[in-house]
Structure formats: structure tokens, C-alpha cells
């Protein structure tokens, strides 16, 4: 079961996976469509009287301390957090796959050097690496933030791909094909992709959940996505001062994170079970 299509189909066939896909699809639709119907997330219509209003018919998630509609902000935040996570993970997976392929295929000192680098990088907890950059970079543009997120998440993937390349390299059919004159790199590549796409997909899915949590955490600490762009972590930070008066400002963005990451993890779990059914 190592083709992408096969794995996807199997994932959706489990009830957990289905739930995850459903929730995620709902979120994506809400993120895209809802802002069209909801008030402007940046608008502050009535700070004096409209701030910190509890959930009501007019404002399903209430308003925050600047009278902004919380639901609108959560929906817009969904767009932002999801896109950031997707782009960052795409970057991580690509980097990891390339490095893994190079290290595994070339072997020798290139492999040793790359893997030592990966070992060293993996030793520093990802949060600290991010802090070392974002805390220092005064006015970090969003693009740079995404790139930094992406370039800190490829190490594990590279090990995975490298392992697979090494395994394929010593398979008899590679030697046989080579003896018949085929290009070794092309053989490895052709057999690599189907074998590695399953685990890569699992890693990517779980990576998305990870990045969402990381981005939320950094935004909560004030060094992630900068205001006034609404991001879930940033909203929780903003709402902290009115936590006791208007807890909905903190509850709902957090719930959004939980639901999204849960959905993504359910999908990742279903994918993993699809490639190793014993662990279901």
C-alpha cells in the first residue's frame, strides 16, 4: 500500500480518517467562504460600547476588547494559520527529500557530513532554533517567517528518505538493472518515490499539526505573525488581559487550534494505520 492514491483511499475508509477529513474540509470551506459573510476582522466599530461582548446572535463568538468580531477573526486566522502551515511543511518535505536523496545516493563523506549536520541540528529543540531567529529579527516579514519555519523542519524527513535510498540501493534489482545498462540514479529515483511517498505523507500531515501549534505558540509570545493580522496564537495573546472578563476571546481561538490539529492528526493517524495496519 505505498502509492499515494492507495494510501489516501485507505485513510478515508477508516472512520477516524473520515472524521478528520470531514472536519478539515469544513474548516477550509469556512476559512475561505465565511469571511465573505462576516464582518471585517479588522474593523473596530464601537470600542466604547461594543467591546468584550459575550457571544450573541449578532456575534456568535462575541467581540474582543477592540470590539472586533471574534468569529470573523477566528475564520480569517484559519486562513492564515493553515496557509502558513501548508507552505512551511511543503518546504520542509522538499528539503528533507532532496537532502535525504543526496546523502543516501552519494554516500561517502557527503553522507557523513550531511548526517552529522542533521544530528547537530536535531539536538537543538525546534522551538529554540525558531526563537534564536525570530526573537532577534526585529521586523520579520511573513514570508521570512514561513521560510524559517520550513527550514527548521526537514531534518527528520531527510533521515527517513536517506534510509529508504540506502535500502533500495542494495536491492538486487538495482544491480540487475544497472548490469543491463540502466542509469542508477534513475532506477533509485523511480523505486524511491512509491516506497517513500506513504511515510512522507504521514510525516507531512503530522508536520502540519506541529507547525500550527508552533506558529500559535510563537504568535502568543509576540514573535510570530505580527498584529494586526489575526492569527489564533496572537488572538489568545491579545485576549489574555481580558481573560477573566471576556474569556471567549481566548477560548474560541484555542478551540479552533485544537479542532484543526486534531483533524489533521486524525488524518495522519489514519494514513499511518493504512501503511501499517497492525497498529490500528
Amino acid at each position, binding site marked *: 500500500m505505498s502509492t499515494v492514491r492507495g494510501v489516501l483511499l485507505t485513510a478515508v475508509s477508516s472512520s477516524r480518517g473520515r472524521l478528520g477529513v470531514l472536519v478539515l474540509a469544513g474548516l477550509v470551506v469556512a476559512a475561505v467562504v465565511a469571511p465573505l459573510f462576516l464582518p471585517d476582522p479588522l474593523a473596530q466599530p464601537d470600542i466604547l460600547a461594543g467591546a468584550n461582548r459575550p457571544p450573541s446572535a449578532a456575534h456568535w463568538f462575541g467581540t474582543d476588547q477592540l470590539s472586533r468580531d471574534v468569529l470573523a477573526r477566528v475564520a480569517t486566522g484559519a486562513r492564515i494559520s493553515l496557509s502558513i502551515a501548508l507552505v512551511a511543511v511543503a518546504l520542509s518535505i522538499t528539503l528533507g527529500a532532496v537532502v535525504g536523496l543526496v546523502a543516501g545516493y552519494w554516500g561517502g563523506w557527503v553522507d557523513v557530513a550531511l548526517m552529522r549536520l542533521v544530528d547537530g541540528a536535531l539536538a*537543538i*529543540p525546534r522551538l529554540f532554533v525558531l526563537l534564536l531567529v525570530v526573537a532577534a529579527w526585529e521586523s520579520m516579514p511573513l514570508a521570512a517567517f514561513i521560510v524559517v519555519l520550513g527550514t527548521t523542519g526537514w531534518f527528520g524527513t531527510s533521515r527517513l528518505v536517506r534510509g529508504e535510498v540506502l535500502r533500495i540501493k542494495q536491492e538486487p534489482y538495482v544491480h540487475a538493472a544497472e548490469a543491463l545498462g540502466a542509469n542508477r540514479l534513475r532506477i533509485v529515483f523511480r523505486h524511491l518515490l512509491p516506497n517513500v511517498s506513504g511515510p512522507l505523507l504521514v510525516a507531512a500531515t503530522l508536520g502540519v499539526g506541529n507547525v500550527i*501549534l508552533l506558529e500559535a505558540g510563537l504568535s502568543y*509570545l509576540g514573535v510570530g505573525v505580527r498584529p494586526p493580522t489575526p492569527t489564533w496564537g496572537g488572538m489568545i495573546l491579545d485576549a489574555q488581559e481580558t481573560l*477573566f472578563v471576556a474569556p471567549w476571546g481566548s477560548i474560541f481561538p484555542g478551540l479552533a487550534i485544537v479542532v484543526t490539529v486534531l483533524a489533521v492528526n486524525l488524518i495522519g493517524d489514519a494514513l499511518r494505520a493504512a501503511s501499517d495496519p497492525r497498529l490500528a
Partner: protein
Amino acid sequence: MRRWIAGRTAQAAVTIAVAAVLMFVLMRVTPGDPLARLMGDRPMSAEEVAALRALYGLDQPIPQQFTRFVSGLARGELGVSIEYRIPVTTLIRQRLPASFLLGGTVLVLNFTLGIWLGALQAVRLGGRLDRWLSTLSLAAFAMPSFWLGLILAWLVGIRWHILPALGMIDPLLPPDAGVVVRSLDILRHLVLPALTLSIVSIAATMRYQRTAMIEALREPYIRTARAKGLPERHVIWRHAWRTALFPVITLFGLWLPIVVTGSVFVEHVFNWPGLGSLTAKAISGRDYPVIMGASLLAAALVVGGGWLTDMAYAWLDPRVRHAA
């Protein structure tokens, strides 16, 4: 055997060295003036600026800077905090006990409750307990620790007024309060941050152990144990669990950094005076030397934890012992 230990140790040393180099590169490569970073936005006199320049070797070419950095590390120097104007190592030493207390408590909870529940899930695979716990741990996994902490602090600490929500000690305790009173006070403050961190981490531990136990129960020697007529509890807890506990050693090694550097988010939310909250404050205060110091410590602990794990395996698993 000795050669194997030496080999592993050398590997660990190389890894730390690479990590340190990476951090140095990161510091220089990030856009912005490293001096401004190290100075913060405090207005300084010309002498202070010059002294800082000399201390960090910023007026020297890069290779020299690197050498100063490495030799400083070797001496155990991690620079001086911008905010507090004292060596980072002193700060770390001050905050360590609080992080130890919090991290240690959560560690104990994880390696008793977490391990046991995970193993139980595997024994009753597919049953109600297993499904419930799996769902709960998936949900816990998805929670941002700082959000969970905030909600708990608000609900339990403020709304229901059961436990204190902030800090480690009650600032209003009379100065002549005895050891017991003080300890109880700390314990009361410990509950919420420990609970927050435990919920999020036990989920991972349970899943890990569940998988390990499922694998262990599938081994052929479990069938042999049953065929011998051993009581079922022996089969599960003496044979299967013994095997399933080995991967837990790895988990232990991964916990070491957390116990020391603390959780940045949880400590920050609860104002728990450990290394984690120190790091969090350093972020907003742009106290780069502190962040650097904490990162170096964390990396050293990650590598150290891995090394300890290898040594533990060698000592406990007869197969590894003989292969070494």
C-alpha cells in the same frame, strides 16, 4: 565494551560541537546588527559599548569571534544577560530548581501513570478503555499548552478559586512561616502548571507505550509463555511489559531537556520562576545572550539524554551488552 562507550561519547561530542556551530552561524546570519542584539535598546555610554564589543569580540574578524565563542563555551561562559546584567550561567543556576520541580513532577506522572495506561490500552486492545484513551490522548495532543494553561488558570484559579493561578509561592506568606507551610504552599502552586504539562505530555507517552506493548505482545515468546501454562498476569506484566519498557528508556532520555529547561509556554503562563519563563521573558526583552544560553543548554541536554539512553540500553539489555 569500552571502545563502544568511547565511540558513542565521541559521537555525542561531535554532535554538540555541530549544534554550537550552527547556533553561532544562526546568530551571525540573522538580519540585524548583532551588537544591537547583544546590547538591547538600552542607551549605553561609550565605555559600555566598547566593553561589550571587546567581550563579544565584535570588532574582530569572524574566525576570531568563533574562537572566542568556543573557548567561552569551554570555560562554561554563556555571556552576560542584557536585562539583568549578570552572567547567564548565574541566572540559569538560579532558575534551575523551579524547573526541576515542575519537570520532575511531570516526569514522575508520565512514567508511572502514562506508562501503565499505555500498556493497559495494549492489553485491552480495541476495547472501550483503549478507544476512549486513544481519543482523549489525540485531543490532548492537539491542545496548545499555553491555551490549556490559561483555561485551567482561569477556571480553577480564578473562577472557582480552588488553587492559586500564578507563581510558585504566595508573596503574602508571613516570614516566620515554617517549612511545612512553605512546602504546602509551593505544592498548591505546583498543581496547575504540572497538570497542564502532564495532560499534554501523557498523551504522547501513552501512545508510545501502547505501540511498544502491542509489538511486545505479538512476539512468539509470548505464545511460548502461555503454552507453558504461566498465569496470564505473568505473561503480560513479566514477559511482555519487560520488553515494552525498553523503548521507554528512549523516552526518558528525551525528557531530560524538558525537565531542565522547563516548558517555555507553561512556565510563562503560570509565572513559574523557572528557566522556561526566563527564556520567555528574554524573548520580549530581546535578551539574546539568555536565549542563546538556554538553547546551548537545551542542545547539550538533548545530546546528553541520548548518550544516557545508549548507556542505559547497554546496561539493561543483555543483547546490546554482548554486541558492544
